[in-house]
């Protein structure tokens, strides 16, 4: 379809996919991996990129709530969420660059909310001095290699720019 670019993120959107890049709410949701919450008064400008092989509803949670319910067995959902710059390079985010997800890592128990027949995974990483989590959901839990290939194809197109000095984005 083309490229979407905003908030220092860019992604090539495959034909037939919906995608969006938006700024997250000022208070960061607790991700599945367990990170601290931003405290009141902190300045946050943390984007989330969402791409789906199906129609994304207007109101979709950071980790795909209200969207995964629409998924069919051939569908995938990919979310790339940024967290506090202070976490970049920390042990949880030690992986460098946008990851390539492994089929073996997908598990029904890894989903933000378990939905029968679906599975998901997440991977934390640092890119451009920024801390991210890549979260993916597959519409089925068996014979998932073709779906994992879709996810990785999307992730490999994600480009993350280094945050300009002084730009909002850190909760420090």
């Amino acid at each position: 379809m083309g490229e979407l670019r905003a908030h220092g993120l860019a992604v090539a959107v495959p034909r037939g996919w919906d995608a969006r890049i938006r700024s997250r709410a000022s208070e960061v949701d607790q991700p599945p991996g367990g990170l601290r919450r931003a405290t009141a008064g902190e300045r946050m400008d943390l984007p989330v990129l969402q791409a789906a092989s199906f129609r994304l509803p207007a109101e979709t949670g950071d980790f795909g709530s209200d969207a995964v319910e629409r998924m069919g067995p051939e569908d995938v959902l990919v979310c790339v969420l940024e967290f506090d710059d202070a976490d970049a390079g920390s042990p949880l985010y030690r992986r460098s660059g946008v990851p390539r997800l492994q089929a073996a890592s997908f598990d029904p128990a890894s989903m933000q909310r378990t939905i029968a027949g679906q599975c998901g995974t997440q991977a934390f990483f640092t890119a451009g001095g920024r801390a991210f989590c890549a979260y993916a959901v597959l519409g089925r839990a068996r014979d998932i290699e073709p779906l994992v290939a879709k996810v990785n194809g999307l992730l490999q197109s994600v480009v993350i720019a280094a945050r300009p000095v002084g730009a909002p984005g850190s909760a420090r």
Partner: protein
Amino acid sequence: MTAAVIGLAMVVALLAVLVVGLLRTHADILRSLHDLGVGEDALGTTGARPRPRGRSGPALPPPASGLRAGPHDLVGATPDGGVASVAIEGTVRSTLLAFLSTSCATCADFWRALGSDERRRVPGGDADVVIVTRDADEESPSAVARLAPTDVTTLMSSVAWDDYDVPGSPYFVLVHGQEGVIAEGTNTTWASVVELLERALADGGLLLQPAEGPSRREVLTGRRAVARSDRVIGGVDDPASDPAMTADG
């Protein structure tokens, strides 16, 4: 006395010249409006924006496939400062594109209706609604954000207006990812747009909700045909007679 008569004659002559000039200007304006397809009947009966003649007249027959326009994907800014793309082409679903403006008075009812349960009256099965305004250089993002329903995808994309050849706002396009544009047009209220969409789909044999309305056979051959408005829904025979929906196919 003679001087006064001559003076008055000159004044009358000057006024006559001015009146003739004004009449000519008025005629030019009316001629231009007529060329744009703005007719007194259309404006008087519905208040809706009439369709430009060039878009629906007999000089523009539909393609051989019976479809007038192919589907186009949507890409644009969102009122919250992000960007989004909505796939249309190649998908297996219908989407109602609502081309609205924050400044048009007629659009107010549509912003309201699309933010309420009335949105679910969209014919065509499980069609989603996407609101499309013009870009930020023509629309205020904050005004769009204030009017945009949170549960309806809203994009700011002048390109989409061009892709779908939108003549003005409000304007509605029901597009299917594989069949292309299946109905389009405008009217003054959401209720009338829904009614005209249903009628346009029925006339095109595309009504997808038989459980909630008459059957296609009934619509095409029976009572629904009798109840059909005198206005030309197809918009081909007399585009100036109805500014509303047209169905292709």
